């Protein structure tokens, strides 16, 4: 049954430009890194004896912001598709549980972000190869750097999904998401529990902790959002 709801969610996104965003995001990150290297190749190459680590470092200047903006837009869109022509009432008067509807939307967003992260990895490998670095020295490091936002940003995405589903006016959830995406880098003074900055902390000593707690807190926030969604009246 749940698979059917998931398929239905997929069908709703047919011919939407969101799919294009999954290419555009990673392409933008790779493109900016490419510009970065073409402008100051000599300097960058000297910064780190491990050229691949150096590349991951440069990638992470733009990656978290791009990832969070992408998550904000995706979360808003999966809610907007129902709000646009008041489809919530139709969808929720079908014999489906609200939990499964909320979960399906959550999974769709996370799956799209996962696909985008995978595209980014391919793009970075290609970029490294093109810059003459050969193949990545460590696949594990590649995975950690490219998928770090995916795990550490689950709380961020869960909050965006909840707010997008809550308010018909998508400018509210978009405003918060965009503000947090663009202001969080370089906010090291913030306390460590401030979940919005986690995706920016890939170079922190507690990187793995942020990924694991991100997943745990994220699932908890998804549950809280679902709990509210199940109870709320549909106008």
């Amino acid at each position, binding site marked *: 049954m749940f698979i*059917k709801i998931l398929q239905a969610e997929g*069908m709703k996104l*047919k011919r*939407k430009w969101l799919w294009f965003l999954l290419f555009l995001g990673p392409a933008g990150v790779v493109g900016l890194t490419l510009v970065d290297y073409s402008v100051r190749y000599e300097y960058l190459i000297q910064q780190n004896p491990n050229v691949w680590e150096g590349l991951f470092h440069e990638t992470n200047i733009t990656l978290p912001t791009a990832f969070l903006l992408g998550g904000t837009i995706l979360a808003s869109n999966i809610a907007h598709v129902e709000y646009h*022509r008041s489809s919530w009432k139709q969808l929720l*008067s079908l*014999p489906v549980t609200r939990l499964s509807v909320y979960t399906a939307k959550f999974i769709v967003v996370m799956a799209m972000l996962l696909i985008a992260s995978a595209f980014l990895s391919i793009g970075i490998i290609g970029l490294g190869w093109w810059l003459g670095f050969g193949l990545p020295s460590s696949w594990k490091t590649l995975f950690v750097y490219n998928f770090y936002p995916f795990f550490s940003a689950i709380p961020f995405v869960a909050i965006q999904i909840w707010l997008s589903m809550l308010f018909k006016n998508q400018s509210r959830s978009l405003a918060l998401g965009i503000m947090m995406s663009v202001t969080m880098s370089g906010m090291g003074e913030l306390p460590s529990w401030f979940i919005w900055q986690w995706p920016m902390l890939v170079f922190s000593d507690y990187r793995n902790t942020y990924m694991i707690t991100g997943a745990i807190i994220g699932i908890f926030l998804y549950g809280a959002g679902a709990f509210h969604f*199940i109870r709320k009246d*549909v106008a």
Partner: protein
Amino acid sequence: MEIVKTTQVTKVFKGVEAVSEVNLSIKEGEIYGFLGPNGAGKTTTIRMLLGLMKPTSGGIELFGERIINHRQHIRALKQIGSLVESPSYYAHLTARENLEVLRKILGVSRNRVDEVLDIVKLTKEANRPVKGFSLGMKQRLGIASALLGNPRLLILDEPTNGLDPAGIQEIRSLIKEMPRENGVTVLISSHLLYEIDHLATQVGIITKGKMLFNGSIESLRKKAKHQVAFTIGEVEKAKTILLTNGLVPTVNKNSLLLDYIDHEQVAHLVYQLVQENVSIYRIEEKIKSLEDIFLKLTSEENEHVHKNTAG
């Protein structure tokens, strides 16, 4: 068997009762007309039936089962098709794709999509994006969506809102065929009586969240009998004369209103009034339409509420 039964259903929004102790009872195979002015609580009641809103108090029974939890409601929803207020659709998808999305969830066969498209006469337009549809076409798509799951109960909330007369006529004949052909029970709401006058078998009238009338359309129509009005000089004297004839008039300024009486009786009364030197200015037959009754019922309640709040 009762398909829908509510007992004292109440919904409070921020301290205001939008629906107040409403008792609905709809039997299998009926077309139930749910009438009331805009904002009377029709849509809120319907949303509670569909599980979109939780009643503040009171109980709901669907298909003979009392709905206590979400799971039971979902089981009932398998047999309900609905169209609530403005049309719901995914604008960028075609009519067929819109129905496909719902079909996936409902788990009905692929043929059913073609069947419902045919019923609402949208087969030719099936592969066009819905954003280019006229309001009437969107509403027809909404009805197709409601029919998709072969429902036993069809709930249509203002299905003809914003349609032109031809569109209204089309939807009306569509609805009328349902119970006859498939034994579907229909709950249809409207703020216009004439829209469901020739459609509904049972009528419920709601204003300000309260049910004012609940019964067959015939019993409502009985209230629509003709009346005879005598406009006369001396009201009190005339009233006594009518009373001695066994007729109980309603006094309205300088006229007396009587329920329908035949020609002979009118002639007899005129003769008596003239003999008693009562001046007769005018005798007229007043025809009360269903619409008048509807307006009277709903406005009386308004006045009543006004008085209450003023007091």
